[in-house]
C-alpha cells in the first residue's frame, strides 16, 4: 500500500513537470496551428541556459527560471518573426518540416556548444527530501511541481484576464481578430511563439533540476509533450495539468507493475486511444 502511494506521488510530481513541458506546445499549436517538432529542443536549450546560470554565475536554478524564460522568449520571438512567419500559411507538411529542421539545427548547435556530455544541475538541497510516514517527497521534485502548477495557472489567468491574453485566444479562432484588439498579427504571432518557447525554457530549467540533460533529450520530450497536450485537449489551458498528471501516473504505474520497458507503450498507447475515442482530449467537448 505504501509502495502504491509512493508510486502515485512520484507520478503526480512528475506529472506537474510534464504539464509545464506541454503548456508551450499546446499554446503554439492551439493559437498558431504550428505543431512544433522542435519543442523538446527548446526545453533542452532552456535546461542548458539554467545549467550555465547555475554553474558559472551560481544562480539558484529556481531563482534563475525567470532569466531562462526571458532568454528563451527572446529566441522564440526572433525565430517566429524572422523565420516561421514566412511559412505560417503554407500547408501542414511544410510547417512540420521546418520545425523538424529547426530541431536538427538546435540539437547540433547544442552538441557543438555544450558537448554531448551529461550535465546535472545540483544545488546543495538536491538530495534533501521531506518524509511523511513511509512516503518520501524529494525536495527538488516537490519544488519543481509547485513551480509548474503556479506557471500553468498563471498562464491560464493571463489568457483569460489580460487584454493580450484575450487577443491571443481570439487569434486562435480567427486571424483578423488580432487586429480588432489593435495588435499587429505578426507581432502577436511572435509574442505567442515567444511565450510558448519561454515556457519550454522554464520547463527545461525545472527538468534540469530533476534529471540529467544532454543535447539529445529533445525528441523524446517533444513526443511526451504531444501526448500530454492531446490527452488534456487544446481548448483549455488547464488541460495540460490533467494530461501531465495522467501521463505521469500511468508511466509510474506501468513501470512498477508491468516493467520499465513498457512505460512508453503505456503512454503512447493511451495517446492513440484518446485520439481515437475523444479527439478533443479528456476535458474537451464531445464532437
Amino acid at each position: 500500500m505504501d509502495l502504491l502511494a509512493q508510486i502515485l506521488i512520484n507520478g503526480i510530481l512528475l506529472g506537474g513537470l510534464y504539464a509545464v513541458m506541454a503548456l508551450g506546445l499546446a499554446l503554439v499549436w492551439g493559437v498558431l496551428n504550428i505543431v512544433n517538432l522542435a519543442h523538446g529542443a527548446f526545453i533542452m536549450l532552456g535546461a542548458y541556459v539554467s545549467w550555465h546560470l547555475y554553474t558559472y554565475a551560481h544562480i539558484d536554478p529556481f531563482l534563475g527560471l525567470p532569466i531562462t524564460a526571458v532568454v528563451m522568449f527572446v529566441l522564440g520571438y526572433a525565430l517566429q518573426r524572422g523565420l516561421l512567419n514566412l511559412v505560417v500559411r503554407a500547408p501542414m507538411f511544410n510547417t512540420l518540416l521546418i520545425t523538424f529542421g529547426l530541431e536538427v539545427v538546435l540539437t547540433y548547435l547544442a552538441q557543438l556548444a555544450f558537448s554531448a556530455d551529461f550535465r546535472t544541475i545540483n544545488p546543495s538541497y538536491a538530495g534533501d527530501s521531506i518524509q511523511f510516514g513511509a512516503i518520501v517527497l524529494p525536495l527538488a521534485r516537490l519544488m519543481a511541481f509547485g513551480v509548474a502548477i503556479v506557471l500553468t495557472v498563471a498562464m491560464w489567468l493571463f489568457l483569460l484576464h489580460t487584454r493580450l491574453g484575450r487577443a491571443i485566444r481570439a487569434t486562435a479562432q480567427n486571424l483578423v481578430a488580432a487586429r480588432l484588439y489593435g495588435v499587429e498579427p505578426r507581432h502577436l504571432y511572435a509574442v505567442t511563439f515567444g511565450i510558448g518557447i519561454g515556457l519550454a525554457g522554464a520547463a527545461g530549467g525545472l527538468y534540469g533540476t530533476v534529471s540529467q540533460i544532454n543535447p539529445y533529450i529533445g525528441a523524446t520530450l517533444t513526443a511526451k509533450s504531444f501526448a500530454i497536450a492531446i490527452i488534456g485537449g487544446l481548448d483549455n489551458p488547464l488541460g495540460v495539468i490533467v494530461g501531465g498528471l495522467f501521463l505521469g501516473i500511468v508511466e509510474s504505474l506501468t513501470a512498477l507493475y508491468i516493467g520499465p520497458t513498457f512505460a512508453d507503450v503505456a503512454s503512447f498507447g493511451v495517446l492513440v486511444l484518446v485520439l481515437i475515442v475523444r479527439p478533443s482530449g479528456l476535458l474537451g467537448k464531445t464532437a
Partner: protein
Amino acid sequence: MKALQIPAVLIALIVLAAVPWFGSDVLVQFGINALLLAVLAQGWNIIGGYTGYASFGNSVFYGLGSYGVGIAMVQWELPFAVGLAFGVVLSVAFAILLGIPVLRLKGHYFAIATLALAQVMTAIVSNVKIAGQNIGLVLPPLNNDLLFYELALGLLVVATLTIYWLSRSRFGFGLIAIRENEEGAAVMGVNTTLYKVLAFALSGVFSALAGGIHAYWVTFIDPESAFDISLNVKMIIMAVFGGPGTVFGPIIGALSLSAISEFLSSEITSIAGLFFGVVVVAAVVLMPRGLADMLRRFRTTGWRYFAENIKATRL
C-alpha cells in the same frame, strides 16, 4: 508522359541499372541506400502526397517488413522471398486493423497518432521473444551487393509504375479528391474510408519490401533501428523536397538529398547534420512545393520564384 520524357526515363534507368558494373563498391552501397530511401519516399507519397495524410507510421511498415524477413529467415529458416511476403502480410494487416480507426483523424491529429503508434510498436517488438526482444536478430549473411542493388532498383521501378498508374486512374483520382476536400469527395461517391485504408496499405507494402531488403542486406535488425522515427521523417522530407503528389518528385528528392548528405558527411563530417537541418529549413521557405515544381517554373519566373513563394505563405 510527354514524348521526350519516356526516352529520358529509360536512359536514366539503364544508367542506374549499370552502376554496379562500372561503379565502386562505395558507390553501389550508397546506391542501395539511396534507392531504398527513394522507395520509402514513393511509398509515403501514396498516403502523404496523393491522399494528403501525413503518416508518421510508415516506419512501422518498414520495421514490420524488416522483422518479417528477420523472423522468417532466422527463427523459421525460410527463404528470403517468403520473409518478404510475411513482412508484407504483417504490414497490410497493420494498415487495415489500425488504419480504420486512425484514418478517421484529420491533419495533425493523424500525424501524431501514427507517430505514437510507431513508438508503441518499437516498445512492443522490444518485448516479443520471437523478434529477439531488444537485442535484435542476426540474419544469415549474403555478400552480393549487386543483387541487393538491382532488387532495390527493381522495387523502385515497380513503386514508380504504381504511382504513375495512380496518377491517371479512378483510384488515384479518388485519393486526390480526398486530399483536396474529403467531404466533397464523399458526397461525389468516393468511398473515403476504403480508399484511405487501401492507400495506407499500398504505401505499407512498398515500405515493408524496402525494410525487408534492407534487413537482409545489413544482416542485423533491432527495434531501435527498424522502427526509427527519424527514417519516417526522412521519407517525408525527401518526398516534400522533391514534390509530393507527383510521379517523379520523391525520387528526385530522395536521390538528391542522399547525395547532399553523403557529400556533407564526407567533406565536413562534424557538422553534416547541421547543414542537413539548414537545407530542410531553407527548402521549406524557398521552395515549398518541392524541387519538381521549382524546376518547372524557375525557367519562366527566374529568381522571383523564391520571393513569390515567400509572399504566398508568409503572414
